[in-house]
C-alpha cells in the first residue's frame, strides 16, 4: 500500500468510526479498555473497494501463488469475497463449527486436496481464531500459506502454533490511533492508554493499576464519541 493510499484508507476508517471506547470483551474473551468495531467499515462501498484492491495486490504478489482464498466465518466472508472478485482467485469459506444439517460442512465451496490457501479475515488480534481455522483447513487437506487481514491489531507477524505462516495486513490499530490523534479526533490521554494496551494486552487482563488509570482518564475519554 503506498503511503498516500494508506492515508486515504485511514481517513475512511476514521469516518467509519470503528475505534470505540471500552471496556469490552473481545470475541477472543480478552478485556479491552478500547475496542475496534471494525465491521462498521463494511458499510462504506469505497472501503470495500480499497480492501479488495489492496489486499488483492498483496495476495497476487505471494510466491507460490495461492489456489484459493479462504474467508473465516463470519467477518472474513465479505473480505474474502472482495479479494476473490479483484484477483479472480476462487473463494471458499471456513466455519467455526459445522451447522449440523443441510449441505453444510466446516469448509464450504469448491476445493481440491493439497490446494494452497490464503486465509483472509477482517482482523488479527491474538491469533487463536486464525489458528483454529488453519487447523480445520489442514484437516480438509488444504495448505495455508499465508494469512491476510485488513487490520492487524497488535502487529503480530506470525500465527501462534503455526509460526511458519506469515501474516500480512493493510493497517494496524496503532497506525489508526496515531492517525486519529493527528487529526485531533483522539486525545493524547487516550492515545497514550491505547498505545500501552496495544503493547501489553495480556498485562491489561489482570493489572488493577492499569484499570485504575482507565477509571481516572475515563471522564476525559467520555468526551470522545468516536466522531
Amino acid at each position, binding site marked *: 500500500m503506498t503511503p498516500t493510499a494508506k492515508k486515504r484508507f485511514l481517513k475512511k476508517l476514521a469516518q467509519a468510526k470503528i475505534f470505540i471506547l471500552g471496556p469490552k470483551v473481545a*470475541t477472543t474473551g480478552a478485556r479491552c479498555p478500547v475496542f475496534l468495531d471494525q*465491521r462498521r467499515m463494511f458499510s462504506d462501498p469505497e472501503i470495500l473497494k480499497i480492501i479488495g484492491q489492496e489486499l488483492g495486490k498483496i495476495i497476487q504478489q505471494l510466491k507460490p501463488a495461492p489456489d484459493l482464498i479462504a474467508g473465516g466465518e*463470519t467477518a472474513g466472508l465479505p473480505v474474502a469475497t472482495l479479494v476473490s472478485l479483484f484477483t479472480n482467485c476462487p473463494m471458499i*469459506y471456513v466455519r467455526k463449527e459445522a451447522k449440523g444439517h443441510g449441505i453444510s460442512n466446516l469448509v*464450504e*465451496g469448491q476445493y481440491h486436496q493439497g490446494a494452497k490457501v490464503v486465509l483472509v479475515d477482517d482482523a488479527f488480534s491474538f491469533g487463536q481464531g486464525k489458528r483454529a481455522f488453519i487447523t480445520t483447513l489442514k484437516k480438509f487437506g488444504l495448505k495455508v500459506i499465508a494469512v491476510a487481514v485488513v487490520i492487524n491489531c497488535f502487529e503480530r507477524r506470525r500465527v501462534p502454533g503455526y509460526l511458519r505462516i506469515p501474516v500480512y495486513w493493510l493497517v494496524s490499530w496503532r497506525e489508526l490511533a496515531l492517525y486519529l490523534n493527528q487529526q485531533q479526533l483522539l486525545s493524547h490521554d487516550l492515545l497514550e492508554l491505547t498505545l500501552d494496551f496495544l503493547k501489553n494486552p495480556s498485562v491489561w487482563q489482570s493489572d488493577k493499576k492499569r484499570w485504575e488509570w482507565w477509571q481516572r482518564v475515563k471522564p476525559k475519554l467520555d468526551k470522545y464519541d468516536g466522531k
Partner: protein
Amino acid sequence: MIKDQLLQTVCQVENYLCLSPILTSVGPIPFSQDNRILFSHPPVFRQIIKALADKMHQEKLKVDFLVGAETAGIPIAAALSLETDIPFIYVHKKRKQKGNMSFGQGDFEKGSVACLIDDVISAGRTKKLLINNLQEEGIKVCDILVIWAVSAHFWTKEWGWIRRNGLRLHYLFTMEELTSAQIKYRGLSPQLGKTMLDFVRFPETWQGNNEKWRKYIHEIEKLNIKPPKFISELL
C-alpha cells in the same frame, strides 16, 4: 433470454448439481444445488451479481442497506454493495455474545430501510427470524432478494407472512427453472429429469415413498453414482 444465458452458465459449473442424495434438516433429499460452490467461480459469481443488480434496478428497489443473511448471503450482499454502491451490513441468526453484542454488523442507524439478501428461499423460516432480529436493531426490511426460490406449493404456502407484512420477494429464477436447465444443459435422461422435477414440484410425496426413491436411485446408478449408505437403510 438473458435469464436463460445465466441459467446455462450456472448449470455449467462443475459440481454445482449434486445428484447423490443428502440428509438435511428437513429429511433426505434426492439431489441438491449447493450455491456456495458458485462463490468459488468468480466469473460466474460476477454474472449472478450483475443479474441481481439488474433485478434491483428493474423492480425499483429503494433501500438504505443491503443486508447479507448469515452465512451464504454475506458474500452475495458484499459483492452487490460494490456493484450498486448501496452500503452493506450483515445479520446473525443469534445475537453476538461478545464484542458489540449485536444481531446486525456494520454502520447502520435506527429507522433504516433494508433489503435482506440470501442465496435461496424455501419455507422462509430463517428469513423471518433474521427480519425479526433486524427489527430489534431498528432496521425495517421491505424487500427480500435471493438467487432462486423453491417452487413447490408445500413450501410456498408458508410465504403468506411475506405479503401480509408488506414485504416484496425478488428472485432470479425458481427451483423448477433451475432444475429444468440442469436437465437440459447437463444432458440428463428424460427419465431422470422426470423424477427430479417430480421432487421439485411435490417434495412432500417423497417422504417414505420407497417407489419414488427407488426409481431415482435406479436412474443415478446408470450414471455410476453410488447412493450413500443412509439411503439403503431408508429403503
